[in-house]
C-alpha cells in the first residue's frame, strides 16, 4: 500500500458516536415505517375477510380496529403510510439523480415531514 499514513487519517463516521443528520434519520425512518405497516396490513385484510363470513364477525373486527388500541395502531400506521408515501416520492427523484444538493435535501426533509402530518390530518378529517 502506498498509503503509509493509516493511523492519523480521519476514519469514516462511526455510527455509535456520529450524530446522524436529519436526512439520515429520515432515511432509516423510511425502512422503519415500511416494516411497521405490516401489522396494519394484516388487520385490514382480516377486516375484509371478516365481512365475507358474517355481519357479526365483521362487527367484531370493525370494533377492534376502532377501539382505542386499534385506533392507536391505525392512526400510527396512517402516518407511517403518508410518511412512506412522501419520502418514497423523494426517493424516486433521488433515483432519477435529482434533489441531491444540500439546500434542496434539507428543505425537502421538512416538506416530507410536514406533508406526512398534513396528509394524516386531511385523512382523519375526511374519514
Amino acid at each position, binding site marked *: 500500500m502506498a498509503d503509509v499514513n493509516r493511523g492519523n487519517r480521519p476514519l469514516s463516521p462511526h455510527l455509535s458516536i456520529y450524530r446522524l443528520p436529519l436526512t439520515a434519520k429520515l432515511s432509516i425512518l423510511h425502512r422503519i415505517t415500511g416494516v411497521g405497516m405490516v401489522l396494519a396490513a394484516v388487520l385490514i385484510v382480516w377486516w375484509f375477510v371478516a*365481512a365475507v363470513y358474517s355481519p357479526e364477525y365483521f362487527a367484531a373486527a370493525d370494533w377492534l380496529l376502532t377501539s382505542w388500541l386499534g385506533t392507536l395502531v391505525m392512526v400510527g400506521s396512517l402516518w407511517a403510510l403518508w410518511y412512506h408515501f412522501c419520502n418514497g416520492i423523494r426517493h424516486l427523484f433521488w433515483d432519477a439523480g435529482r434533489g441531491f444538493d444540500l439546500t434542496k435535501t434539507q428543505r425537502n426533509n421538512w416538506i416530507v415531514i410536514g406533508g406526512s402530518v398534513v396528509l394524516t390530518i386531511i385523512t382523519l378529517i375526511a374519514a
Partner: protein
Amino acid sequence: MGYKTDYSRVQGLGTAGDGAHHWWLHRISAIAMIPLTLLFIFPFARTLGSGYDAMIATYSTFGHALVAVLFFLVGFWHLAMGLQVVIEDYVPHKPTRVALLLCNTLFNGTLAVAGILAVATILFRA
C-alpha cells in the same frame, strides 16, 4: 473451472444474480402505489367503523373493489420486495435468511390472495 477466466465466470452475476431487476420492479410498484394509495385510503378511512352495511355498500361497487384489489396486489408485492431487502441486509446467517425469505414470500402471498378473494366475494355476492 473449464477454460473460463475468473472474470467471465462472475460477470453479470452481482451479489444475488438479479439485483437490478428486483430494484427496478420495486420502483415500478412504488410508482403504481402513488395513485393506488390516494384512491384506496380515503374510501377505506370513511368506511372503517361505519358498520357492515356501509362496508358492503362500498366494496360491492366495481370501482372501489377494483381499487382495493389493485391496492392489495401491488401493495403486498411492494411490501414483499421491501421486506426482502431488509432481511437480506440485516440477517447474515444464511439458513436463517433463506428461511425468513421463504416465510416472507408465503406471508405476503397469502395476505394478498386473502384480501383479493375477500373483495371479489363481496363484489360478486352483491
